[in-house]
């Protein structure tokens, strides 16, 4: 029994070596897993951490008097984690959500369709149905225990107190792919502003999403907060906005503009604040919330009157005679004319055989009465004199560039940078434009004479006209127009608080103002005359256009010596400026400055409001439609 078997004794070293080799290999593998490959940690985190997004409340919107316009209401999304769903009682589920089986199957298919829902995964909550209201939510919540894998996600939905200014406020909808690609803040099924203030002030309004880090086990069940919420982040509510807009004025403007196409813009000249911005036709903002969004949006999009276009900032119109004050200002500034310079008019511009034509008035005239009577010939003479002034400018082209610079200084030809999306820049040609058009540099004032009276190539947005009116009212300076007056907890963009100059001497403005005052007291816009209550200055415009009747335009401000408001009104195909735009301007200024409409004007108010002017250009696209009221019709959509 003595251990005599020593012959294989050294095999112990072989066995010990095996132990050492195994040890070494395993340590290398551990090093490889734990030190060299950080992806395992990330993998572990995405495994175990469920990052629940906490949505902030979107900022509310108030009008200039603190009246609440836009607020939030809770709404509920139905989310599904397909992996966790076991034997869903489809019948009961459909019944609870008040949908039929076909809808259920459709929603389910949409949810699982990776083309429509690229982020689909059966392990994470997926949106099944959005925007349940409180009652539906209550029903579902009660039965939720019956439907494993079904969750409710709280969200908020925009609510609107007034059915007005849908185009200004804009709407909120699910973000699209481009937005998600451009800004990593957004993920699938997030909501973001899509137009109007909701879009331009998205970053103010949206706030900041919060996150709750929860622990999730292998079955996807939530096991509680990770480290007692050490890594949680509370959502930060969006900033409340106060608009410069006066909701009463806005509502009144939309009332006057019903069944018409065009816009009204009122600016407080001393601040650049937009007091009202009516773009007609518009729509009730509340129809673009909730479950009927797609249906209503489609209807608006297909409407021949294009109620989704904010004509106030993106409508392009020839300014017509409202352009004349700008011409007077340039001629005076460039010393082409003096206040006493007179030009004669014989029912038209004589050098071109009476074209453009003019209406009967005393002749010859100097600037002030020319503005009051809106004499075409005077401004044609003026432009001709400027472009042909070889004592001052070496060439027509040089003279024209000087002219153009003045137009730009008066706010034409470029965006005003208002805090609203889709603004257009209008059009003020430069010399190159004409050199290209005429294919040589030898064009002269007479080739382009119609620009002197705001026709021809000149195009301006209603906003540019209102801004330019404010410059005149201020006698030379302005602030960039803006609809948002204040942001809660943040200063207003310095873009809007910087005073800007028009580079034209104040005395020239005084003369122009006098001409515009005369136009109201005994000139073309007598219908805006509210003496002795209010001293108004104004200028009409009757813009010829290829789309039928002339557009009716009016610009004006009041009171004359301490302007509190500047206004621009455009009624598409509304005929003479005096016919529609002037009375609207009168009523709007009255409403704003006097608080209410005078008894003697109430008849006028009814007349204007009941007037239906439907431009043929739009009607043509919908010949069979008999339209009583665009605004009403659009409102009907909501009731459906």
């Amino acid at each position: 029994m003595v251990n005599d078997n020593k012959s294989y004794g050294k095999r112990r070293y072989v066995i010990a070596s095996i132990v050492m080799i195994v040890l070494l290999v395993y340590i290398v593998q551990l090093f490889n897993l734990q030190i060299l490959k950080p992806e395992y940690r990330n993998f572990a985190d995405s495994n175990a951490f469920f990052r629940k997004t906490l949505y902030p409340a979107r900022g509310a919107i108030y009008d200039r008097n603190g009246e609440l316009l836009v607020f939030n209401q809770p709404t509920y999304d139905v989310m599904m984690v397909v992996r966790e769903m076991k034997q869903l009682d489809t019948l009961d589920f459909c019944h609870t959500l008040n949908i039929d089986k076909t809808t259920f199957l459709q929603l389910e298919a949409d949810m699982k369709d990776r083309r429509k829902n690229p982020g689909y995964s059966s392990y994470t909550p997926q949106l099944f149905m959005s925007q349940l209201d409180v009652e539906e939510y209550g029903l579902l919540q009660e039965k939720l225990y019956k439907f494993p894998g079904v969750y409710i996600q709280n969200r908020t939905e925009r609510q609107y107190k007034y059915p007005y200014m849908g185009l200004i406020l804009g709407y909120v909808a699910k973000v699209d792919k481009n937005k998600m690609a451009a800004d990593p803040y957004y993920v699938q099924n997030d909501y973001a502003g899509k137009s109007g203030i909701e879009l331009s002030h998205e970053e103010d309004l949206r706030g900041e999403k919060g996150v709750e880090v929860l622990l999730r086990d292998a079955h996807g069940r939530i096991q509680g907060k990770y480290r007692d919420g050490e890594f949680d982040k509370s959502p930060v509510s969006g900033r409340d906005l106060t608009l410069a807009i006066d909701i009463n004025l806005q509502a009144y403007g939309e009332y006057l503009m019903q069944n018409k196409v065009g816009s009204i813009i009122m600016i407080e000249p001393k601040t650049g604040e937009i007091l009202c911005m009516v773009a007609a036709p518009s729509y009730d903002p509340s129809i673009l919330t909730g479950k009927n969004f797609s249906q209503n949006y489609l209807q608006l999009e297909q409407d021949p009157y294009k109620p989704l276009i904010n004509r106030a900032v993106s409508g392009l119109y020839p300014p017509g005679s409202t352009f004349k004050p700008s011409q007077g200002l340039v001629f005076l500034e460039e010393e082409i004319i003096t206040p006493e310079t007179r030009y004669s008019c014989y029912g038209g511009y004589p050098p071109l055989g009476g074209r453009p034509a003019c209406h009967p008035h005393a002749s010859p005239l100097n600037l002030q009465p020319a503005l009051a009577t809106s004499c075409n010939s005077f401004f044609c003479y003026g432009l001709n004199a400027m472009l042909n002034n070889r004592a001052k400018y070496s060439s027509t082209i040089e003279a024209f560039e000087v002219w153009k610079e003045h137009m730009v200084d008066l706010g034409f030809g470029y965006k005003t940078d208002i805090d609203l999306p889709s603004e257009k820049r209008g059009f003020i040609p430069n010399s190159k434009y004409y050199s290209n058009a005429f294919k040589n540099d030898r064009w002269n004032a007479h080739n382009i004479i119609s620009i002197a009276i705001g026709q021809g190539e000149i195009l301006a947005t209603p906003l540019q006209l209102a801004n330019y009116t404010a410059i005149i009212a201020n006698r030379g300076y302005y602030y960039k127009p803006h609809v948002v007056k204040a942001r809660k907890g943040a200063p207003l963009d310095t873009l809007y608080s910087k005073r800007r100059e028009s580079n034209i001497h104040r005395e020239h403005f005084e003369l122009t103002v006098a001409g515009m005052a005369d136009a109201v007291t005994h000139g073309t816009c007598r219908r805006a005359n509210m003496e002795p209550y209010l001293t108004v200055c104004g200028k009409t415009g009757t813009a010829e256009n290829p789309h039928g009747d002339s557009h009716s335009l009016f610009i004006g401000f009041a009171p004359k010596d301490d302007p509190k408001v500047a206004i621009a009104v455009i009624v598409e195909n509304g005929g003479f400026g005096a016919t529609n735009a002037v009375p609207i301007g009168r009523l709007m200024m009255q409403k704003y400055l006097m608080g209410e409409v005078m008894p003697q004007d109430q008849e006028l108010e009814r007349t204007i409001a009941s007037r239906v002017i439907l431009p043929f250009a739009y009607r043509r696209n919908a010949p069979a439609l008999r339209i009583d009221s665009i605004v009403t019709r659009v409102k009907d959509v909501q009731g459906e």
Partner: protein
Amino acid sequence: MYRGSKEIEEKGRVDWFIVTMYLIFVVLGWVNIYAASFDLENAVSMFDLSGRAGMQLVWIGTSLVLAFVLIKIDTSFYETYAFVAYVIGIALLIITLIVAPDIKGSRSWLVIGPVRLQPAEFMKFIIALTLAKIFNVYNFHLMERKNLIIVFTLILLPLVLVILQSETGTALVYLSLVLVLYREGLPGGILFMGVAAILYFVLAIRFSDAQLGMLSVGEFTAIVLIIIFAAAMVRNYVKRRRTAFIIIGLALIVLAAGLGMHFFNLQVDPGLLALVALGLVTVYLAYLALRFWKKSYLYILLFVVGSFAFVESSEYVFNDVLQPHQQMRIKVALGMEQDLRGSGYHVGQSKIAIGSGGMVGKGFLNGTQTKLKYVPEQDTDFIFCTIGEEWGFIGSTVILVLFAVFILRLISMAERQTTTFGRVYGYGVVSIFLFHLLVNIGMVIGIMPVIGIPLPFFSYGGSSLWGFTILLFIFLRIDKGKK
């Protein structure tokens, strides 16, 4: 290890070094079981008997009592009753096979009232004891045919019974006792052939997709290995260095010829080249065997031919003999499949858990992966995940090193035994622990296929802890009583 007077002094004492390590292991195991089974929602105390850690404490306590009793029993008792234990063990395995209920696909649990026992666990030390007793017979030579048959039957009988109980892992543990046989005189060549077979199999399966001419990359590499092995064997067993060089030379000449032809723009199939080389080596060996009439050449020739046959058939065996879940486990271990939701789930999650531990780990009870039950069997077979996740690279390395020290100590203890009985039993203990560590940790870190055997002293479970305690303490008793 201990020599001279010190040895006499030490005689009759329990090896406190191993006892201390044992205590360290069971305490660490208990702590980690608490961490692994820690429920975020209703955390129970480490001592609460309704929790896993609390129960493990009961198992540890009973194990200590068991250990004490085992140390008190005389060594001759183990020697005397080894065969009796074996017969009872086999009987229990058979009974289990008949009466055991199906628990998670395994029929290895003997349920007696509230107690559940796994006879296969206890069979480990019984086989080791029995082997020791057989080897202890005077003038026992393993390589005698009768002895070989007895020894292999002893091992294979319980192995088959346990396989029938669907406990493949435990069955493989019995097979690990071949290491004891190696220590006691089983030719190294047999051990080498086992290693070579695993190597061929892995190569043939792992690299079966990429083609190198008419052979797969795996087959090609295997043939290169076979030629090298053949040369090495010639050098080792026939002691003819020149012949070994000729074999390598033959292969190189074929390779050079192939390259040369390639140089002359002749398309050569590298697979064909390898086959030609192997054929030449085979013919040369056959020639040598006939010429010198030496058995060694014949064996080497058989090895070469057998190896090639094995390589060629392993793909067939893999695809047509193995069960799909076994194929998948092997593929996952070989890194051929990543399917984290399917068969690779266990290993994938356990690698994530360990990998997320980093250098120093997330700290006690802070592991998210194991707490949230991402890792299955986390307090039994996958307990090492918790160590990896919560104690990081440093902690897991410390545990690995501790285990290595433990086994090296056992080896030295086995070698210092004065009886064959003691040494053989000691190596039985070494083999069983080594195999458990190799397979369990290897599986958790993704090197070995998933084979469900516990990590000694760490995995939760009464049977396994009792089994390891008995195994170890009988050896400590034998060691204490050595003359």
